[in-house]
């Protein structure tokens, strides 16, 4: 991925900035241009909204076979996390034994290195999760 492609998403990947619909109040992450409930009514009314970073595990897997940019990290725990504001997202869980990860477990987001383009290339940061 080229650098600029990553920069565009920094607010969301570093600070969990999603959107709140100014029409119905629904919070979504990552930002989307239209509210899925209000459709046209939401045009121009989607405001940035920062998530707290707290959520719980809906499902998870332990990944043993990963693309090159993540191959140094295998095996890693990948999970779907339902955030307390409503939206769900996908991220790694770390700082614990993968065997102890459970559905329903409470986690919080933390900023970590996600991957790097090459040994001397751009480093990509983003959210990962740790147990509460």
């Amino acid at each position: 991925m080229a650098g600029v492609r990553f920069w565009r998403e920094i607010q969301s990947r570093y600070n969990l900035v999603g959107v709140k619909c100014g029409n119905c109040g629904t919070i979504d992450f990552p930002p989307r241009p239209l509210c899925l409930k209000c459709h046209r009514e939401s045009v121009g009314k989607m405001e940035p909204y920062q998530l707290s970073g707290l959520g719980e595990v809906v499902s998870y897997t332990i990944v043993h076979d990963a693309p090159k940019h993540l191959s140094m990290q295998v095996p890693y725990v990948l999970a779907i996390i339902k955030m307390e504001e409503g939206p769900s997202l996908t991220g790694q869980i770390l700082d614990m034994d993968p065997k102890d990860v459970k559905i329903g477990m409470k986690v919080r987001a933390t900023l970590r290195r996600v991957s790097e383009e090459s040994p001397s290339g751009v480093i990509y940061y983003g959210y990962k999760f740790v147990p509460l």
Partner: protein
Amino acid sequence: MREVAVIGIGVTKFGELWDKSYRELAIEAGLLAMKDAKISSEDIDAMYLGNMSAGRLVEQEHVGALAADYAGLVTRNVPSTRIEAADASGGLAFRHGYLAVASGMHDIVVVGGAEKMTDANDMQVVETLASSSDVEWEAFFGGTLPALFAMMARRHMHEYGTTKAQLASVAVKNHKHGMKNPNAQFRNEIKVDAVVKATMVADPLGLFDCSPLSDGAAAVILCPLDKAKKYTDKPVKVIGSGQASDMLALHDRKSLTSISSTVAAAKRAFEQAKKKPSDIDVAELHDSYTIAEIISIEDLGFSKPGEAAKGVENGEFSLGGRLPINTSGGLKARGHPLGATGVAQVVEIVHQLRGTAGERQVKDAKVGLTHNLGGTGGTAVVHIFERA
């Protein structure tokens, strides 16, 4: 809308076909289908080609034109369209061919599906498969395609008590069926224990829970039903065609144990066909991962939610069972050349409804169904067929 029939089918061997190029595979399947329908390239009005990722896998885009060129259709400037919806590309190309004939725009249409996966290295393939998910918000954070299906499997286990051995029984069944298919990539029996103990890919899915990397192509010829008897004694009618979308990212879905695109596409196809799940005699489902077949059986209404895994384990969906599923070997054993799969599914169902499926023939099959998913289900395509 005109009624539409399949009058010709062709499929190559699936597998690691080192000596065959992308274009050779596509043309081989097309020529087999044309021979089967007893037509020549001068009879063809349009071509639709399902292909997921020739650009990544063989560094060739514009494969619609490539196929028309090498099939000889180019001398009459026949329109040729490549259709892409990840690994639902083949099923979706079939739908577009069907719509073209049904609408009256074209009479004789060839629908192909082709993919060449073994010219790329394994890493490129992993990344290509992951690109059918949401690249910015799933793949970037480590979401591979098997990892996403693994999270569906884990949730299915959590909600319904589905076991790893039950997932394995999908692979065991499909390998057993694949043994009877001369074109299948794998024609060996495997045991539940071997599937359960296989190298982990994304826990709880092991290597044998995953469909393989494959090369292969398939093609079918469509025409209006009222002209079908001119070409074949055994036309097969397309009686229902349904397509639907779902949230691209798995984490945005309401449920991880049901794919709403399958449910919606099936509803549309069943309504058009005026059939219900219990009318289906044989079906080809999208078992890209073992859990995908379990969830699809439930979403298509062949089992109640949470009961498909037990059904597979008890042989309900094996040859000889109440509804044989993936008699071809499915994606698991026949092989899964991404864009070819949806068309190969149609080839198998046409064989079954013609009564030409050989050792794997379902006795007196009259109505058949195909189900093709793109990625984790952002696209689903369902077709229903009947012996004319």
